[in-house]
């Protein structure tokens, strides 16, 4: 790496956010054209995520349709402070895709998660315009900060829908180590993007329980 990576504008409200909110307001009035607009805007991102998780074109389309219908039905109750519309939509897509593949695995012991909002929905905005601003090089930089085992743990969780216990079993790794790999991996990505050391967050950890 040459220059230290400039900090990401991780939480910026942009014209895109405002436009999304305007579209959402129209959706809450039952305007089909507005739903069509929101669909066009994020269909590729939504479908790509769903397809990456499900590896099944038809299931992925079901997931995306369900997620958009959720937005359609609940736009009026959407709370602005919760984050961008994109965060909301893509979190639902991710959540539903994971649900779909968990149902496909009959051995997975999991509660019915339909009634539980995804973790990211309980957090402030994590998507904002970040994903849109990320170029391929930035993404590569972040991912290359991961060790192989960190990447494995993160991908099994985020794209595979496995719980930390399942990841520990599947990779024959102690649970504490799996926890650390996920946490330290995400921290490493963040450091690669921001160039911050962030000792308050990452201090005193190793890849051991």
């Amino acid at each position: 790496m040459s220059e230290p990576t400039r900090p990401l504008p991780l939480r910026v409200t942009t014209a895109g956010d405002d436009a999304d909110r305007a579209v959402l307001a129209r959706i809450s009035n039952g305007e089909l054209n507005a739903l069509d607009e929101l669909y066009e805007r994020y269909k590729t991102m939504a479908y790509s995520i769903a397809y990456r998780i499900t590896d099944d074109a038809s299931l992925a389309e079901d997931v995306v349709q369900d997620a958009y219908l959720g937005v359609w039905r609940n736009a009026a109750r959407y709370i602005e402070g919760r984050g961008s519309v994109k965060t909301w939509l893509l979190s639902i897509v991710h959540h539903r895709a994971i649900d779909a593949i968990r149902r496909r695995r009959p051995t997975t012991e999991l509660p019915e998660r339909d009634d539980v909002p995804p973790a990211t929905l309980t957090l402030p905005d994590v998507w904002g315009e970040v994903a849109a601003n990320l170029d391929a090089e930035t993404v590569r930089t972040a991912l290359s900060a991961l060790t192989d085992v960190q990447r494995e743990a993160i991908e099994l969780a985020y794209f595979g829908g496995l719980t930390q216990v399942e990841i520990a079993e599947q990779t024959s790794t102690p649970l504490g180590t799996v926890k650390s790999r996920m946490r330290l991996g995400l921290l490493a990505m963040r450091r690669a993007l921001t160039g911050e050391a962030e000792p308050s967050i990452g201090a005193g950890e190793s890849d051991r329980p």
Partner: protein
Amino acid sequence: MSDLRRPADLTCDEVRELAGAFVLGALREEDAAAVRAHLDTCPDAHAEILALAEMLPVLAASVPPVEPSAGLRDRLIAAAAADLEARAAPAPAPTVPSSSMGAVTPKAESIEGGRSRRPWSVPAWALRVAAVVAIVVLGGWNLLLQGQLGDAQAYERQVANVLAVAAKQGSLTVVMTPGSAPATGLAAIDAGGGMTLAMRDLAKPSGTAVYEAWMIAPKAAPVPLGEMSIAGDGSAYLQVGGVPATPGLVVALTREPGPGATTPTLPIVSSGTATASS
């Protein structure tokens, strides 16, 4: 059993330790709930949770982009229109409990809608009409954008004919979604076997080639219904009899090298399935 001893009473250190698994959704629900409970009451803002969660878009951006099929949009819009119609629908038939008409409940969980749960019950005719209305509205809108007002009116007239059939008691509707070509359309089959089919966005066939409509009943050979001649705007209209109003019947459109085909030539240009009514 939980992998935490006392999930309801996490310490700040335990929450930090679980932060990665939490944001990645890798905690079982009881443990995730314990983390949320802690975050709700803890005086520490636990900024690390958000800091880690901000990496989720980066993970998502690493996914290779894939386009959904064009049919997805049509299905979504039709479903949304049906939902809209359901919300606006008048009092349901007496057999439907009135409580099920509450289109949305204020429960937080329902922010996602639901695949398996249907918080409403809709007369089948409302669904049919809603699907038709969606196509009329959006079809007209898209064409208007293209400055093709005259053509849009032609298509709308065709769709109005379909709508008239769809509104009859015992009718089925067929939403035609794109196959090998981006063509879409709508058909209605009445109880007497009369079918009207309106298509748009069809490319003009070259030479002697024609568009042929087929009906395909389950476990039966495709039966030709007739040729569709394409108007200048790419729309086409067909009205035939002898089509059984059977849910599950597939209506398909193919491009044939010439008139009079007895077996369809693949690929299918556009197709749809007859949807059951009440």
